[in-house]
Every structure is written in C-alpha cells, then in structure tokens.
C-alpha cells in the first residue's frame, strides 16, 4: 500500500518537493527574484523580445527532467555575438538554472539542457549580446498529476 501511495505521489513532483522543504511556500522563488536576477544582467539596458527563442514542452511529461532548448539569432562575428544565455525557473527553490557563455568561436548561439520543475511555472531565457543589449523569451510549462485522459 505504501509503495502504491509513493508512486502515485511521485507523479506530482511539485508537491513532493514542497514537502521536503517543510511545505513552506516561501521556499520557492518568486517571479520578483527572477526579475531581480535579470536586472543584474541587463543593468540599464531595456529587455527586448524577439531574437531569442526558448523551446519547452507545453506540459512536462516528467517534471524531474524537462527538456528545453534555446537559440538566439546572431551572426556570431567578433563585432556582433551573443555573450551569454541564462535560464531561470520562476517557481523552483533555486531559480537560476544555468548560464551558457558564448564567443564568436561558438559559431551559433544555441544550447539544450534538462531541468527539474517543481510545479507549473514560467521558464525565462535571457540573452545578453556583445553590445550590451538584452533579449528574453518566456514559456509557461505545466506540471500535471495526469492520468485520466483517453
């Protein structure tokens, strides 16, 4: 019986994670924390849209391992390239997931990774260009209990 119960709950990564942290909702990051982190990257630059594309599933098949990829339109020359792309998960205990650093030698500015998502939330990707300009893209990824469709 315990085994079944554990497995049923295993589908709900969000709830399991919160439980480990003592059920405290404030253990999770807030969108404001992510906004502050992005502000730290951008400085005074205005955050634009376009240029950067974040790809993520609409609904996670497995909240423990959600594949995402990001690509930025850039010639990647010495004069004009993508310096970095940072990924944030607004609803995770540790919202800063990863930062990819690029150089003109990278050729293209694209990267993929997998991340754990504690619950349904926004994932934000922020690209900083060599000229200091900043672009971002956001995807909402749903983490479900699942299991009653058909």
């Amino acid at each position: 019986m315990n085994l079944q119960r554990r497995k049923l709950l295993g589908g709900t990564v969000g709830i399991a994670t919160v439980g480990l942290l003592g059920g405290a909702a404030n253990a999770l990051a807030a969108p404001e924390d992510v906004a502050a982190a992005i502000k730290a990257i951008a400085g005074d630059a205005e955050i634009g849209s376009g240029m950067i594309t974040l790809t993520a599933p609409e609904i996670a098949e497995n909240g423990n391992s959600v594949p995402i990829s990001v690509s930025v339109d850039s010639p990647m020359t010495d004069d004009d390239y993508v310096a970095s792309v940072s990924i944030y998960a607004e609803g995770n205990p540790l919202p800063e997931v990863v930062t990819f650093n690029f150089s003109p030698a990278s050729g293209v500015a694209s990267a993929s990774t997998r991340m754990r998502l504690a619950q349904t939330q926004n994932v934000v990707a922020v690209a900083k260009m060599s000229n200091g300009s900043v672009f971002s893209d956001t995807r909402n990824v749903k983490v479900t209990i699942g299991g009653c469709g058909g």
Partner: protein
Amino acid sequence: MTTRRDFLQFAAVSAAATGFSGGLSKAAATQTITQDDLLKFDSKGKLTLLHITDIHAQLKPVYFRPPSENYGVGAFEGIPPHLVGEDFLKHFNLERGSALAYAHTMVDYVDLARSYGKLGGLDRMATLVNAIRADRGDNNVLLLDGGDTWQGSYTALKTNAQDMLDCMALLKPDAMVGHWEFTLGADRVLEIVDNMAYPFLASNIVDTDWEESVFESTAFFDRGDTRVAVIGQAMPYTPIANPRWMFPEWSFGIRAELLQENVDKARADGAQVVVLLSHNGFDVDQKLATVIDGIDVILTGHTHDAVPEAIKIGSTLVMSSGSHGKYLGRVDLEVSNGKITDYASTLIPVFSDVIAPDAAMSAKIDEVRAPYEKELQRVIGKTEGLLYRRGNFNGTWDDLICQGMIEERDAELSFSPGFRWGTTNLPGQEITIDDLYNQTAMSYPSVYRLEFTGQRIKEILEDVCDNLFNIDPFFQQGGDMVRVGGMGYTCAPKQVMGSRISDMTLLSTGEPIDPKRSYVVAGWASVNEGVEGPAIFDLMENYISKQSVINVPKNDAVKISGMD
C-alpha cells in the same frame, strides 16, 4: 461540402421516423436508406482522402450514444464540435428523428437506435471503402487510419491487437498514427510496425536521449495525379494520459516547430498537397491550423468528435471523423497546377443494416473472434436502463463502474477515468463479456484502493478539469472529466485551474469534503507502475453478476456552473 440534396435524402427517412415516434420497425427504416444513398456524393477533382479514426478495436457494429455534454471554452464555445442535441440539429439543419440526427445526437436516442440499428462494423466499412476505390480508381484514393485502432475490445486485449492487425491488413490503409497503440508497450509496437505493410507515422515522437525521430514523420504518395505528403501526429500527451513506463524512451508533445519543419520539408520535396493525419484532438488541430503554414487538410481524431463536413480554417480543411467505426470521412480535392482549387467533404454514417458486409472482411472478423466467441457471448447480466459512457462528466456505464468499485473494494469514493471509448447497451439488453470489455479492455486495469485527503482529491479534480477546459487548446489532453463515485461537486468550466471545483460533498453523509480528512478511494487505470488490485473487468464481472437486473439511478451529483 455535404450538399443540401444529400441531407434531403436523409430527411425523407426522417419524415417516416418522426411520424411514428419510437414504434418504427427497423425494417421500415432500412427500406428507406440504401447503401447507394450512403455513397451518393458530388465528387470533386481526382483525389479522394478517406479517413477512419478511433475505431477502438470495434470489429462488429455498435450502438454508441453521442454525448449530452461536450462543452467548449474560450474561442471554441458553442461551435462544432461543442454542440450537442438540439443545438447540433439546428446548426447542421438536420431534422429530428432523421438518420443523421440519430448518428450525431442523443435526441430520441433509444427510439431511433431501435429503428435505425447499429452503426459500424469493419466489414461494412470495407464495403464502403472498396466501393469508393472502385468508383474513383485505386490510384486516386488514400485511406488513412487516425489511430486508437488496436485497443478497446476483449479480442484486441487477448491477442495483443493481432485481431485488428489481421483485419486492417485487408482494409489496406495507406498510413496510420497512434495513441492507445502505445499501451501495448514499446516492444510490441516496434514489432508490429516493423512488419506492417503501411507506415506508422509520428512527426512528434522523439527519443528521450537524443531527441531524434523514433518513427517516420512523413510518407509520400502519388495519387490522383498529385504528389501527396501525409505527415503523422501521435497523441501529444500519451506519456501523461497513459503510462509512460510502457514506452519510457519516447517523448511526445505537440512540437509545432518540428511539424512546421516537416511541412516545409515535404513541400521542398515536391508535395503538392500536404495532409496532417492527426491524433491531436479537434480543438488542438483547430489551433494548429492557425499556427502552421502549408497544411492543406488535417484529418483529426482522438476527441471522437463527428462533424458532418470539413470545416475550413484559413486555407486548411479540418475533418473530424468520429469514432468506433461509426463513420467514414471523405474529402475530395481538385488540384490544378499544384494548388487545391475545389473540394467537397462528407462524413458517411456506417448504417450497418443497409450495407452489404464485405465477404472477405466478414470471414476474417469471424476467424479472429472464433477462439473467443463463446466467452464473448457469455451473458453476465441484464440492464433495465440505457448504459453509455460518452459525455464530459458522467455516463451510466461509469456510474455503474464507480458504484461497483465502491462496493467491491469497500471504499468511500471512487474514480473512473474520463475515457471517450466504450459502446452503448440499450434498455432491456443483456450484458455480455464482449460489452463489459468494450468499456474496460486495456493493459493497466488494476483497481487500486488508497487514502487521499480531501485536499488531494480537490487537486486531482482541478488537474483533470484543466486538461479538459484549459482555455488554450494546446493544454487540452482530450479526455473527459474523471468520473467520481460517492461524491458530488460543482464544476465551473470557464474558471481557471484551482477555481473550477467547489461544493465537494460526501454523498453518503451529505457532509462537505474535509480537506484534512483522509478518504478511502478506489479507482482504475492509474498511470503508475506496479499498481496492485483486481483488474477492473474481473471486479465488474463479479459486481454485475450478483445483480439480477442492473438499474443505474439518475445521477445529478455534478452541477455545472457558468455554462448556458
């Protein structure tokens, strides 16, 4: 377009039917519609697409009651397929009591079922397909199978779908896609696909390690002097709605970007017509038509919506061809200079009593069922009222299953999944093993018994409800609401997740569900591995057998709020 003339031919029948409410004998009805009437069509161009979908392993003709509720939200409220009953009749200008009214709505369902008889049967389907192939020429017709073909009956379960494979081999589809197919497990699916005479397509399935395609995405055909690309789309949320552990290395999803790439590639490779053979569901495909460029026709399945003709969204035709073998979808295309210049479409109801069964298919169906026929016919009970499943919130078959689980597993509450497959028993009919498995035949049938807190029960209901009524169709998984036994609640489909479910009440005491208290819940079809408990078909056979007559009480435990 289904023409006015086509409708009038059916209307001729309806006059007789309505003039004699309920008492019209089947013979009288069948004298008025003929096989030729069903096949009559103002054809267009040279190319014909035929679409069958969501047969759910129904080789024999069936009763299948259309839903009383099929709510749409947001942009999709009040438009096909979210019209039922009188609204459906009015929208499509169908006369009450007519053959099409019977095929498409639950209005006067029992009376009309007794008059018009069963629909479907793969041998009748074969007759229609072969007649259209003969009329149009084999080289001008594509037959496409939208999936959910290999699951849903006793024989499909016992033979690991070999019964369906043997019969479909005679029907000779040109391609197919999948959903419940995957619940046979990855090994069996690959074994079948490797030996099948036609491609199993999936643009949206990649392996979890490298995100590389697992199946072919596209098949090309030269038909009707046209190069046609057929791109396949599996049910995007199969690993969420069904057990992911059965195919752990495959990832699904809508993958619109990948689909656009495959459409562009098909065009670059010379396709003049691009067809998406889809198991996305009707609303997902309506949205997809607006975000993908270059698809001419979407043949959609999964949500079991039967719409009498294709709808046009931008320059894309969307045809939804129902379920359970009840209908054959037909889209004719006139193509000149690589562009579609005209089209016509219709959904042909497969009235089994007026179509001569195809002899070869009949013999094959008998052959695959023969080892099981005695068991299939075994009577386990009798129903006083109508037993059906389809509908957003409940059906009498699931009311019965929910009650059976509560009693057989000594639970306070029960959950039965919102599956859209499952046939209908008319009042007074006997219930056979065949009937029982038409509701329950699947590969993860264990009935669990667990304790959930009231809070957890609310979370589950909100979660499932959001899969059904999320305002963005890309988040809809295509099933109906989970059925709940022993509990009433109010549902507000237009609210957001977390705010749709209220007034949860334990029916046995009339008390509100306490978020902190634990409740003993029985349910089946858990997507988790290693679930313990009796199989739902065994449990229900016990439960039904104990009763001399099944009589499901009227169920108004779910109240709907905010929908007119």
